[in-house]
């Protein structure tokens, strides 16, 4: 079936004129129509625009153009601005917001000829680890509709896992690509801070946010990341450095690759999860990698550090939502203070308000030094730990999540327990490092992921290692029952 083919295979079929992009787009739109009512993975489906973009891609190909993404459908997380299309960020605040321009990521994928099928559901303003904070309701995990797909990019992950599109964009502030990729059995990569432009990507925590991609395999992710990456003068954090050919180095042998096993992340690990990670490490060793244990003593403080820094930045970023220029506005405000307070009180959901208040508290007079400044110092210690580790190893390996997908509603009333979902993923965000999650097996019939973390700008090495792992295993080929 078309939806089980890799991006490389689809590109070849398109090049040979065996199928057209319009046919491919119709195929995925039909799957979305049939399956989205169950999954709730998409907030907006842009069928007419998608068919027009597909027809344009077919014309470009007929005119002699080539490219691995020309005519390939995708789904954008609803955090990326899409010109003329509602961009909600999963919030009531932006329920009626129609973006007046394209994000750079959207613009670049359009230029590569990729066809946007719609906008994926997500935790409100990307704050959540279960996709349950969305104003549009929870996304269901294709592997078990009673369970969450992870978050915050839960709709993007569920879409790719259910074969509603060959790939999808996401964002990752504390694990929001890697955690849902793991819980839905797909591949997700968060690149280095500054690798992909954030222009037009709605801000949550600006020193941590980074755009990335979901696909079923590392090879597919390489094509997508290639098109998304690179310098953009419109994002002041964008790094002006050349982008290597990610697809070109996928086949490099792993012989001699030095892999560090993160000691702190293997302590207290659930035995079945530990066995899967050990098996994945065994496969990498079989491919020639050499492994050694590495200790990052400050790493256990990642989660509390993150839950000071991220809310602080969120409270600042979300102050722009004032009920005046765009976004939700309350009825009949009696004065300006009432307009601000009720518009924000009504427009934001419970978790977003909780994070804004946490951030306001840690930045307030009398608490700034004890919380925010302290957290930024601990963050430096964590970053130094990683730098020392990467002087000795080429990659770090760990689990992506402590458990498989949990039940919808199981953790919503306990924010701290929810925050601990990201215990293995947050470190890479704090240090700005690239990291990838790849499927590595099942616990209780639910997919689990193995995480690879690299030094800054080592995306090619992560994709290469994951691709070689996926050539030796078939976990990434498994489809959820009913979605094959």
């Amino acid at each position, binding site marked *: 079936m078309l939806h089980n083919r890799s991006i490389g295979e689809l590109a070849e079929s398109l090049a040979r004129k065996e199928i057209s992009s319009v046919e491919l787009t119709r195929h995925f739109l039909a799957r979305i129509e049939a399956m989205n009512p169950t999954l709730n993975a998409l907030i907006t489906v842009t069928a007419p625009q998608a068919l027009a973009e597909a027809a344009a891609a077919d014309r470009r190909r007929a005119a002699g153009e080539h490219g691995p993404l020309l005519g390939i459908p995708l789904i954008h997380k609803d955090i990326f601005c899409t010109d003329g299309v509602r961009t909600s960020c999963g919030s009531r605040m932006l329920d009626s917001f129609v973006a007046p321009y394209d994000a750079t990521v959207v613009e670049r994928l359009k230029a590569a000829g990729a066809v946007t099928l719609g906008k994926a559901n997500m935790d409100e303003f990307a704050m959540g680890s279960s996709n349950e904070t969305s104003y549009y309701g929870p996304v269901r995990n294709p592997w078990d509709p009673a369970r969450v797909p992870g978050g915050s990019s839960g709709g993007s992950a569920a879409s790719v896992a259910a074969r509603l599109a060959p790939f999808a964009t996401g964002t990752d502030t504390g694990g929001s690509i890697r955690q849902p990729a793991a819980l839905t059995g797909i591949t997700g990569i968060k690149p280095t801070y500054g690798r992909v432009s954030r222009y037009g990507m709605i801000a949550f925590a600006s020193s941590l946010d980074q755009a990335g991609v979901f696909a079923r395999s590392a090879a597919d992710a390489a094509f997508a990341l290639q098109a998304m990456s690179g310098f953009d003068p419109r994002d002041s954090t964008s790094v002006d450095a050349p982008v290597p050919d990610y697809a070109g180095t996928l086949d490099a042998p792993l012989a001699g690759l030095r892999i560090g096993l993160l000691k702190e992340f293997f302590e207290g690990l659930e035995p079945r999860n530990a066995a899967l990670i050990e098996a994945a490490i065994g496969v990498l060793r079989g491919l020639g990698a050499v492994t050694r244990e590495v200790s990052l003593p400050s790493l256990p403080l990642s989660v509390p550090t993150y839950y000071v820094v991220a809310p602080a930045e969120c409270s600042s970023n979300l102050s722009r939502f004032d009920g005046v220029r765009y976004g939700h506005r309350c009825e009949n405000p009696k004065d300006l203070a009432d307009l601000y*307070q009720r518009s924000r009180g009504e427009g934001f959901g419970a978790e977003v308000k909780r994070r804004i208040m946490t951030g306001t508290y840690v930045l307030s007079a009398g608490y700034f030094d004890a919380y925010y400044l302290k957290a930024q110092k601990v963050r430096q210690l964590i970053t130094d730990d990683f730098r020392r580790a990467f002087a000795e190893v080429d990659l770090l390996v760990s689990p992506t999540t402590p458990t498989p997908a949990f039940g919808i509603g199981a953790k919503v009333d306990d924010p701290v327990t929810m925050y601990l979902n990201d215990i293995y993923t947050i470190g890479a965000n704090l240090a700005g490092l690239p990291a990838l999650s790849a499927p590595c097996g099942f616990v209780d019939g639910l997919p689990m992921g193995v995480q690879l973390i690299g030094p800054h700008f080592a995306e090619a090495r992560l994709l290469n290692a994951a691709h070689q792992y996926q050539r030796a295993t078939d976990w990434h080929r498994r489809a959820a029952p009913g979605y094959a």
Partner: protein
Amino acid sequence: MSLTRQEVEKIAHLARLRITEQEMPVYVHSLSAIVEFVDQLAKADVAGVAPMAHPLAGQTQRLRADEVTETDRHEKYQANAPAVQAGLYLVPRVIE
């Protein structure tokens, strides 16, 4: 450290968030739990450590030339505004 209701009311005011009577006890409880959780940072020894300024060592924010790069697109931008008149955003009367 636990937060009191008065402290949460003050935070909500600083953040310009209207919190309803029903919501308030939930926030007092969950914000207290979060503050207790992040209090474990207190035990970290950070003597002599400078607070981190950027995730990439040595990287600084670029400056651009002070030149006009954007054209006037107020009609498109204001299409998203809740209340607009004659190209101006409408808000409740601020000066009596």
